[in-house]
């Protein structure tokens, strides 16, 4: 069957508690992710778009706003700035967008013109997600995972694309974790067999491609956090000189976490937790198979995608990488492709 492929990439935000903190930890203490002064409590949702974070949490309070921020996106609550060396992140900020459209493996400029920059989202589905505001990586410290502490699903899974100005949702599809119980939360799905199709199919502990996507030199990963430490030291001084006491301590906490989890100067064997996550990415490859009887029903805007017509009763194939998680920024990188079975063009 002919295939319309829509590719996307960008940074996401995910402020989840990390081991050895419990997964519902709200401040972050023993793990490497912290909610610091001026930010809201940790909440593990995956945020695909900065504007959604802003709509939910607003802007940083004046006493926590950095007048020297390199990008206005860092004035949004909970979105952190990186040191200047992490140029790709600082320029792009948080946001997963469409970057390519192909029909049967060939670029299709007519549709790309309309869809490039379209906003890709992993949306929430409260009925199968407990109290969280967005989909989450849910492992509960090996309670809902399968014994491999790093194999998490993204759940719930509602994938959508909006027009570049976000005025219109042009595509959306839900994928139930359990086809027979679409409203079940992950912890309720037992045994694990139904979960397996949504787990990563491959893991790349040292992904050069992933690192190159975000502009980190694979041969000098250590410099990524060394630069961050130096930059954070400077930010502490800057904040103190502005009389922003709490902001200075917030930067100190970021510095502490980066130092503790990379430099092995503390009484710790967790020294590589940050370093190991930056080069890591995992490949997910599954279909979206929600039906018209499930909420939300499949959506495909025929007018927007004309002349393509897609069969919403067939499964759509979604392949995506998640990785390059920077524990200091609580941000990772996503890239992938949605493949839609379309009717042949006449």
């Amino acid at each position, binding site marked *: 069957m002919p295939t319309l492929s829509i590719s996307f990439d960008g940074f996401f935000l995910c402020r989840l508690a990390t*081991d*050895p*903190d*419990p*997964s*519902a*930890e*709200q*401040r972050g*203490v*023993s793990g490497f992710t*912290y909610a*610091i*002064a*001026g930010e*809201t*409590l*940790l*909440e593990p949702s995956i945020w695909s778009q900065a504007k959604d974070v802003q709509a939910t*949490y607003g802007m940083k309070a004046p*006493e926590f706003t950095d007048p020297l921020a390199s990008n206005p996106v860092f004035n949004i609550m909970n979105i952190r700035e990186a040191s200047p060396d992490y140029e790709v992140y600082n320029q792009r900020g948080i946001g997963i967008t469409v970057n390519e459209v192909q029909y049967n493996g060939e670029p299709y400029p007519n549709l790309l013109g309309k869809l490039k920059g379209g906003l890709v989202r992993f949306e929430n589905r409260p009925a199968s997600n407990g109290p969280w*505001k967005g989909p989450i990586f849910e492992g*509960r*410290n*090996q*309670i*809902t995972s*399968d*014994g*491999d*502490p790093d*194999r998490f699903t993204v759940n719930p899974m509602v994938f959508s694309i909006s027009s570049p100005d976000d005025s219109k949702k042009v595509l959306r599809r839900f994928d139930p974790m359990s086809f027979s119980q679409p409203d079940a939360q992950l*912890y309720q799905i*037992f*045994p*694990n067999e139904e979960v397996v199709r949504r787990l990563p*199919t*491959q*893991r*790349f*502990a*040292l992904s050069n491609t992933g690192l190159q996507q975000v502009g980190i030199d694979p041969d000098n990963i250590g410099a990524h956090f060394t630069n961050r430490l130096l930059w954070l030291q400077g930010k502490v001084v800057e904040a103190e000189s502005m009389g*922003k*006491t*709490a902001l*200075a*301590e*917030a930067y100190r*906490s970021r510095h*502490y976490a980066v130092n*503790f989890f990379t430099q092995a*100067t*503390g*009484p*710790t*064997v*967790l020294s590589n937790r940050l*370093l*190991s996550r930056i080069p*890591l990415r995992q490949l997910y490859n599954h279909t979206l198979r929600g039906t018209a009887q499930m909420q939300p029903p499949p959506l495909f805007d025929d007018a927007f995608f004309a002349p393509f017509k897609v069969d919403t009763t067939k499964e759509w194939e979604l392949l995506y990488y998640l990785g390059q998680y920077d524990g200091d920024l609580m941000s990772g990188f996503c890239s992938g492709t949605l493949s839609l079975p379309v009717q042949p063009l006449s």
Partner: protein
Amino acid sequence: MAAHPLSDHFPGPVDPRLHARLLVPQESDREQLTEFIYDLLMQAATTEHLLSMQYLFACFTMKKYPEEFADYQPGASSPPQQAINEIRLAQIEVIRRWEANMLMVAREEMEHLCYVQNLLAILDKPPYLFRPNFPVPASSFPLQKPVNLMAFSNPAIQVFRYWEKPSHLPVPDPLKSYEMPDQLRPLFEAVPHPEAKPFDPEAMHAQASGWLLDLLDGKMDMNLRAQIADPLQNGTAFNSIEGLYFVIKYAFKLGLEYKIIEGKNMERIVNEHFGFNMQLNPLVLGQYYTYVEQSIQQIIEEGEGVWGVPPPLGSHFWVFQNILDELGSSETTRGLPFQPALPVAYNPTVAQNQDRHLASLQHGAQGDAAIYKVDNPVAVKAMILFNTVYNTMLQMLNGFFADYEIDQTTGLRPNHVNAYFQTVFYPFMTMIVRPLGELVCRLPASASYQPGSGRVPPVTAGPDFLIDIPVYDSAQRHSSVQAMKDVGDYTAAFNQMVALCKELANDCAGAGYHIANYQQVDARDFPACFNYLAESIGRISLNFSAYWDGAMKAPVSSRGFQNFPDTYN
């Protein structure tokens, strides 16, 4: 007769009389020496266990949210109040960093406890996971101070620094801290603050040699033997951890080298890291003493430094010293009174009987006064839940250490061992024990408490880690923490926990109790937290049974996965 040189520098030549005695072993030697080392290892296990729980308790008591300061008013517009808010927000950051370090220290004490279980395996003895209830009198503990459940505070950190200090380093008597609660003072005054003096391995060597010679000849002083056999009841024979571990190491070395005892149970050596710094070679067959020596070296090194060598900067001693330094400067630099901990009662308990506490049995009314009986019904229920969780955890640990084995090629363990492994460490300690401990510390201790606007109660409860047996009953010390044999017994325990969690969610809602920050965006109040615990424990129960029956396997096959090298784990 010339002294016999041992194969390495420790601990120097064997006393000639002991050497001569060991060359002509007698039938009773094996049992005498084995039981002697066993007693010492039980004391070591008790010590590590007490320290770890004491540190954990202090961590649970630490403030996490600015709303836990009474003078923090979120959203205030007046500049003076905004200045106060800014200070409290800054202090919460500092407190978090202290807690992160202390939790790491607590975890390392657990690692030490694991090493001691491995040494028990080498001795062919069962795991030992009993410890007396808090407070533990100074006379029963090898460090000459009582062990209390103390909220994070200047005196608490002074005591912790004292535990971890090198022998030669003088530190002030924690009793002199102006914040030391009056009700704890008699327990501290029972043993005078010792003068610091360097650990003297030669003197300890001579003493240990004398003990061992007397032991083998059946001439050991009865009181001394009784102290070694039951330090809780008879008082400890040691005044330093270095001394205790020195004798363990020495007795092991002589026993193994002179073939009085044999190393056993290589398959029971646990080396799975749990995030710990466990890097010793677990393949101990034929090199048991190397393992004994290296594990004890690591235990001492991570604490107060090795045999008089100053402690490294990452050691426990420096963690507490740095906290004390920062604690001293925090109040003066910020200009506001600073209480970094919740008002958690000292040595809280739900025990009904006096014979549960050594302090009561040995110090009477003064011991009783050091214990706070929590009577708020919601807090009592939460503490009972905590104790159910804690005791079940000890039983699972016991089963894990008793039956441990792993296929070194496939990484597979027997089903029931796998059930313990997949349950008791990662999910149970992290997902249940810690959050529950923190919740208990936020509940009111007193039945007369009336909730008001989500502020912290005047006195709060705390987990008492109660093992509910008469502490002098030595048989129950073993049986009370024995692993359960039937998976159904574990399921029943998990179900009981789930039921209590659900009740507590309702109780808190009904009583109008709140966590102080409950009005913050995304805050999870008591009902949400207890219900989340119920969900997690319920699922743990299903997983546990499936692992036990072999329906679930782990580790999963890593088909095509590029896994982390060890250094990244």
